[in-house]
């Protein structure tokens, strides 16, 4: 019997969720909706008596202070009938069959806790009661644009629907015998048809290599073998572009020079790390995250992942599982690290993107942004990991492919960063159960998106269950500390196929797929093997240690199962109900990929230039820059994240007495009782990449390092992560830019003495609409982690005390290219900021010493918006005024104009505040560094700036500027 329970707020209670939905509807331009009320719906299936339903409502489902309820085992008389009356329309939204809904598990648990054992299944739904005279078409539009995402949800339209379906559709009669895929004798065309149909995303050379491998074995492949190879060889898992050969051509002044790059990764990113050879780099590149030394007892690890393709289709689920995935990377680093901080960086199209110009099938960027932020909020907050640092960039070219970078930092006891499965170990899967979700995630992210992606790839999108992962975290660390397993890794893209395949790369693996715990019956052996269901970890456990590990996991209700062994045969063997369905050589799987050669072409683009006069005053320009989405306050988003859980934040993302200034980097204690800590920062600037990715890379590295210096850190132990998000690397112009960026990464990592320790790439960020391909601007995120000897010496960016001196450190050049200032003229320009590492290093080293001596009252890095923007940010963050004289700013170049000095985004510059009493000591430390004392902190809340000829070029009230800066993303 199915019971339907409806819960709504009592009359007079403020429905905050409903009113939020109402605001979104108004944003859509539908003023006809007067109010929205939300009704929570639960469906209970089982042999349940009414008295039990009453008790479940009273004691579990409702809040008696604020909510009412009703329940029935037959349709309510008024149910959906309201739709016929023009005054209300009702849309009921439920999850599609197979989508994970953690609430269902919680309700079932809660019912068992009440001692009621007759409820077999629970489903949830949400009813939106839209008040107003709206048409069915209006309601459909609201449902489509706001209330649901077809990929994971559907709308119920009739009372009959409202009582079904409660059980998952199960596929009956799954054949236990192996299904062969005939490859023998197929020509190129037929091979590619097969690859396309099976969503394998393999090219013809790869298909032929597979064909000849099975020819030699004298048999046809089983379907799951083909899938396993496709997963392992996917761009996502195998990084074919970075590790392959590239014919790199540079076209300059009509001439083309070409050279061959064999393995771009080894010859740039990894080469820099090898060259630098830092003793404090503990583990680089080969594990889930890079590890560096923290102190004698602990190391820290850092990883940043992307989750772009899933976030484009289902923003909440995409970013949600992106955070979950990168946390599992940290849990699976070495023998397991404890996550202590998250970072999140996003790239979206502007939230005011005209709806009429959206490519078919793309979600509106505002909706993408809200969903992504909510997804990060949900997972990070529920895991109890502070989200301490991030950035958001906006560009129209991200409209089909938003970028979501999720980072996580962990701490691991020294010596526990090594792992290796041992012959005879059990293969143990733990955590969440396996379902039909996330099928083909790895291969799906290795292709371009189209408007059909939401149909074809809906299985690739999932919702996470952070509490399941938190449970895994809690028991994993106990198991680690008792030495109960010899290796651990996460189940990410490719599912068990990747996790077991990697862990058993040397030893081989034997798996009984029918022993994997399932969410529901009916999965084929292939689905079990490649499913990317969330919150799963794979362990290698000796039979002797297994009982104790099981005891720990059982004690906190974390499920685990032995699914196989590492036999030492070097073969991957899969069985399903006793039948062998896979037997592949690990050597072929991991090293059999044919090397490919891709073509790359780099030609320096020329962007439009336009001569415009220098504005007489900057009042208007500065307001335009401050309200640029790229520059404006991200406070509304930062506050959605718990950035203080674990109690370790020393410099938080929001600074100053009103807690709203934009901090440069985060400073965290790693242990609450120690003054030693870490600094985290991010450098990203896709606008620079449109001019030259080489200098974008140099600028991003400089920015991330500069921010570490800004908060009082030093360059002694700073490590970098790279994250490349690019378009289709099979197109030479896209790949040319990528090569430029990688070369920049190499040169400046070496120059700054900051090795790369880990990285990631995401390609095919292109969206095909009406035959036209929209590629994202090649985007590089550099994330930096530094060790800070004494966090009590940290510096924040808010101006502190009237009368203090304001210095600019570093030289300003005529480098307006890619600036926020030129963007106000709708220009990109060409004069991109370059980096002089030698000069920067000297300045940074001196500044670190000054901070360590306590001589810096405030510091802020000059980035987007340039010098004047940085200064007013410092002023309104500190609630102080300031005067500035541009004539005192060290400048090199021909075009020494007020606007160039004020808004050029030259690298390696910071503004610092110094107590006049410390002037001599400060200037002595800084001797030889180009800098200018160009201003003073003022009591009155105004910023005055004087130009080169001592002309007044800005007079503005800081509170008003702050309001301009705070408004744009306040929704």
């Amino acid at each position, binding site marked *: 019997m199915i019971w339907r329970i409806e819960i709504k707020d009592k009359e007079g*209670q*403020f429905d*905050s*969720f409903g009113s*939020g939905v109402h605001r979104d509807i108004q944003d859509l331009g539908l003023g006809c909706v007067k109010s929205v009320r939300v009704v929570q719906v639960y469906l209970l299936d089982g042999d349940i008596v009414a008295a039990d339903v009453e008790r479940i409502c009273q004691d*579990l*489902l409702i*809040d*008696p*202070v*604020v909510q009412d309820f009703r329940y029935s085992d037959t349709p309510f008389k008024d149910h959906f009938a309201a739709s016929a009356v023009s005054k209300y329309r009702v849309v009921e939204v439920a999850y599609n069959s197979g989508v994970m809904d*953690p*609430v269902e*598990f*919680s*309700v079932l*648990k*809660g019912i068992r*806790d*009440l*001692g009621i054992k007759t409820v077999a299944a629970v489903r949830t739904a949400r009813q939106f009661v839209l008040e107003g005279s709206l048409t069915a078409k209006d309601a459909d539009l609201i449902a489509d644009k706001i209330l649901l995402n077809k990929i994971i949800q559907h709308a119920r339209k009739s009372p009959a629907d409202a009582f079904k379906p409660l059980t998952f559709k199960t596929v009956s009669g799954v054949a236990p015998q192996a299904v062969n895929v005939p490859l023998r004798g197929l020509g190129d065309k037929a091979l590619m048809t097969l690859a396309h149909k099976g969503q394998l995303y393999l090219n013809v050379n790869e298909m032929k290599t597979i064909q000849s491998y099975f020819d030699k074995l004298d048999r046809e492949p089983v379907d799951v073998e083909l899938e396993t190879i496709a997963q392992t060889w996917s761009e996502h898992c195998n990084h074919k572009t970075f590790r392959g050969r590239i014919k790199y051509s540079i076209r300059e002044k009509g001439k083309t020079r070409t050279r061959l790059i064999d393995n771009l990764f080894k010859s740039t990113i990894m080469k820099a790390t090898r060259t630098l050879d830092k003793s404090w780099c503990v583990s680089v590149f080969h594990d889930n995250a890079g590890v560096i030394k923290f102190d004698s007892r602990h190391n820290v690890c850092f990883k940043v992942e992307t989750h772009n393709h899933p976030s484009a289709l289902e923003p909440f689920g995409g970013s949600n599982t992106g955070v979950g995935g990168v946390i599992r990377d940290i849990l699976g680093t070495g023998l397991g690290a404890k996550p202590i901080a998250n970072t999140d960086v996003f790239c979206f199209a502007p939230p005011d993107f005209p709806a009429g110009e959206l490519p078919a099938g793309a979600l509106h960027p505002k909706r993408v942004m809200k969903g992504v932020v909510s997804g990060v*909020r949900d997972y990070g*907050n*529920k*895991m*109890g990991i502070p989200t301490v640092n991030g950035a958001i960039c906006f560009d129209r070219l991200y409209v089909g492919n938003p970028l979501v970078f999720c980072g996580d930092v962990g701490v691991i006891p020294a010596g526990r960063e090594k792992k290796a499965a041992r012959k005879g170990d059990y293969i143990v899967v733990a955590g969440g159960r396996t379902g039909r979700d996330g099928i083909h995630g790895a291969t799906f992210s290795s292709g371009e998106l189209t408007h059909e992606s939401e149909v074809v790839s809906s299985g690739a999108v999932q919702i996470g*269950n*952070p*509490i399941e992962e*938190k*449970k895994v975290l*809690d028991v994993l660390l106990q198991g680690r500390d008792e030495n109960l397993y010899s290796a651990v890794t996460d189940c990410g893209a490719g599912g068990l196929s990747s996790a077991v395949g990697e862990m058993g790369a040397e030893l081989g693996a034997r798996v009984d797929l029918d022993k994997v715990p399932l969410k529901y019956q009916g999965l084929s052996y292939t689905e079990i093997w490649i499913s990317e269901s969330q919150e799963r970890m794979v362990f290698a456990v000796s039979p002797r240690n297994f009982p104790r590990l099981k005891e720990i996991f059982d*004690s*906190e*209700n974390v499920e685990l199962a032995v699914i196989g062994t590492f036999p030492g045969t070097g073969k991957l063997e899969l069985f399903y109900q006793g039948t062998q369905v896979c037997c592949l050589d690990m050597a072929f799987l991991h090293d059999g990929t044919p090397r490919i050669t891709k073509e790359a072409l780099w030609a320096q683009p020329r962007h439009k230039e336009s001569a415009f006069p220098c504005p007489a005053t900057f009042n208007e320009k500065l307001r335009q820059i401050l309200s640029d989405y790229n520059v404006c306050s991200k406070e509304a988003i*930062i*506050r*959605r*994240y718990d950035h*203080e*859980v*674990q*109690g370790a*934040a*020393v410099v*938080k993302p*929001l*600074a*100053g*007495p009103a*807690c709203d200034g934009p901090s440069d980097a985060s400073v965290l*204690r790693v242990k*609450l*009782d120690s003054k030693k800590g870490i600094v985290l920062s991010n450098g990203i600037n896709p606008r620079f990449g449109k001019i030259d990715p080489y200098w974008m890379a140099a600028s991003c590295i400089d920015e991330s390092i500069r921010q570490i210096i800004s908060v009082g850190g030093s360059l002694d132990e700073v490590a970098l992560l790279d994250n490349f998000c690019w378009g289709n690397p099979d197109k030479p112009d896209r790949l040319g830019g990528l090569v430029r960026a990688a070369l920049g990464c190499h040169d400046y990592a070496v120059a700054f003495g900051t090795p790369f320790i880990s990285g990631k790439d995401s390609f095919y960020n292109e969206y095909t609409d009406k035959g036209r391909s929209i590629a994202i601007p090649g985007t590089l995120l550099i994330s930096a982690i530094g060790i800070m000897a004494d966090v*009590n010496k*940290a*510096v*924040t960016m*808010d101006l*502190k005390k009237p009368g203090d001196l304001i210095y600019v450190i570093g030289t300003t050049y005529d480098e307006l290219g890619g600036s926020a200032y030129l963007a106000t003229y709708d220009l990109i320009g060409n004069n991109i900021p370059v980096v002089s590492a030698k000069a920067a290093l000297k300045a940074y080293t001196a500044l670190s010493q000054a901070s360590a001596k306590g001589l810096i009252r405030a510091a802020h890095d000059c980035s987007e918006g340039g010098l004047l923007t940085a200064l007013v940010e410092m002023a309104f963050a500190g609630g102080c005024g300031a005067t500035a004289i541009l004539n005192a700013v060290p400048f090199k170049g021909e075009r020494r104009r007020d606007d160039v000095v004020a808004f050029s985004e030259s690298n390696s510059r910071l503004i610092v505040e110094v107590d006049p009493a410390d002037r001599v000591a400060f200037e002595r430390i800084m001797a030889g560094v180009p800098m200018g004392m160009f201003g003073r902190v003022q009591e009155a809340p105004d910023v005055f700036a004087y130009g080169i000829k001592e002309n007044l070029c800005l007079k503005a009230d800081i509170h008003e500027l702050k309001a301009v800066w705070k408004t744009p993303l306040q929704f």
Partner: protein
Amino acid sequence: MSTQAKVIVLRTAGTNCNSETAFAFARCGAVVEEVHLERLFSGKVHLADYHIMALPGGFSYGDDIASGRLFANELRLRLGQDVRRFIDDGKLVIGICNGFQILVKAGILPGPFKPATHRQSVTLTHNDSGKFEARWVHLKVEGRSVWTEGLKDIVYFPVAHGEGKFIPADKKTLQALGHSGQVAFRYVDENGADALYPQNPNGSLEAIAGITDPTGRVLGLMPHPERHFTHTQHPYWTRFGHPDQPGDGARIFQNGVDYATRTFCA
């Protein structure tokens, strides 16, 4: 008899402020154990062996259905008598954020707690903003509680929650709380005057941020005192210097430990 106060910090699936809460108590001189609920259920650990029970923040069971609901039911249905005895024995209870939500939903606050005839008379529900929000708030300290003795008149703690709006079942309940001195903290502006959003971050009635039971020994509050335990946790400590001095929240933990030591360990 032990010479140090013993604190049990309860945790379950989704609890996540247990370590920093334990750190605060340990720093104040207590012996602290972080214990999973299942260990109490299975009888491996006994509540009676401790002097202070702390329910830390987090998202127990994901706050699915409603914040703290499942944990509250477990506490009431499976450990109700133990908790009742713990309070009757004169021991201390503190619930922070999710812990406060649990105490309220189990009927332990505002109390007096009667596990058999449970009636929830107040609640903590969705913020008026409809959002989870992390921000620092000023709180006026009121009432009489061992936990809040000697606290500054106005303290500064962060909140980080989506369901912190305090609502009583009726006016009478609200008045009774005021009359009996059970309101421990109210949101105020930085000068101590009445708070509007965002100083009152969730729309709580009469700006109530924390309450006690009639004995004053059971305290629940939405803001996080353990996140202002040391001075460098203050969001703009760099404006004052003195990184080594204690934060506003330290006194609360010290009060608890001192009281328990005085009462049970002398």
